[in-house]
């Protein structure tokens, strides 16, 4: 699949690892991937903050007192299914089936919106119990990390709505395919970060 350039004879000399130059005609996907890697560093530093401060309760509530694992299980399921349905939308895009693609995108968007809704509900609940971000270093790091992830999902959902309008209007054009591929990476990446959040912050936070 990726050997067009090699077949054209441009790479007669032995190549090491990168078999091609970055695709100049469309470097967007590579650029967006590098953006995601930088996002990865943001989340890594927030995870470090949580790892270091996660047991500094300042006499306040601990993880096992404030975390609702049943709600967390629902949240996790919503995000995972949303990721898969986005994948189904990409498959329909590959087939050029616009209405099915828009349908799957809508499902993915609704699931993500439900995820954000549950998270806001959880935050309000915690703040109501006196476990707001100002209570202890543990809660500050928790709200910073989970809130940053939630904001990413929120903006991803807004981006999805904008793209669905574009797709509905102009169809599956090359520009829209490129945009949707970027959003797809973003979507799956957020699911990946959530794996770290539910495993480390919540499940291990309860065990601390």
């Amino acid at each position, binding site marked *: 699949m990726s050997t067009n350039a090699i077949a054209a004879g441009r790479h007669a000399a032995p190549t090491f690892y990168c078999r091609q130059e970055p695709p100049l005609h469309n470097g967007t996907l590579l650029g967006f991937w590098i953006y995601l890697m930088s996002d990865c560093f943001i989340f890594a530093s927030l*995870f470090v903050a949580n790892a270091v401060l996660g047991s500094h309760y300042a006499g306040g509530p601990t993880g096992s007192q404030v975390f609702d694992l049943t709600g967390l299980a629902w949240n996790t399921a919503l995000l995972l299914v949303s990721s898969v349905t986005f994948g189904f939308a990409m*498959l329909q895009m*590959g087939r050029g089936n616009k209405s099915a693609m828009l349908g799957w995108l809508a499902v993915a968007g609704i699931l993500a919106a439900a995820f954000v809704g549950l998270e806001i509900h959880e935050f309000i609940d915690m703040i109501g119990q006196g476990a707001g971000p100002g209570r202890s270093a543990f809660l500050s790091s928790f709200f910073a990390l989970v809130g940053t992830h939630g904001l990413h999902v929120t903006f991803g959902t807004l981006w999805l709505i904008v793209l669905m309008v574009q797709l509905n209007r102009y169809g599956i054009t090359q520009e829209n395919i490129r945009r949707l591929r970027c959003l797809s990476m973003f979507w799956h990446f957020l699911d990946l970060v959530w794996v770290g959040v539910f495993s480390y912050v919540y499940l291990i936070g309860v065990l601390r």
Partner: protein
Amino acid sequence: MNHPSPSGAAASSGHDEGVMQAHEGSLRSYLTGFALAAILTIIPFWLVMGHVIENRFATIVIVLVLAVVQIFVHIIYFLHLDTRSEGGWNMLAFIFSAVLVVIVLGASIWVLYNENMNMMPGMMPGTSQHQHSMPES
């Protein structure tokens, strides 16, 4: 996971972007990824919510290992990262980032864990007086 599905060619026919077809994946890769991710999610929830293992440390290690495995499942089956995407540059950027993230996470936790341990009142020589005066203040 990178079968050149005939469906993937439809949208990009007429363009010289065969390289990018790998991004779409296939139905099989999404379903495999979903099944693996679901299993790798249910096990840690079950371990923690059901108090299956008495040993807390062992539970933490298992949860962490399952999380790392699941992250790789997502990268392979959902993000379709392999040595061919974008001519290998995606993989290169990923390995670079992964190394840095491991160093940042590992080193920070290690340094601060040691600092916390060694700064505990009473662990440093000559602090016993300070320790005794704490409750009064």
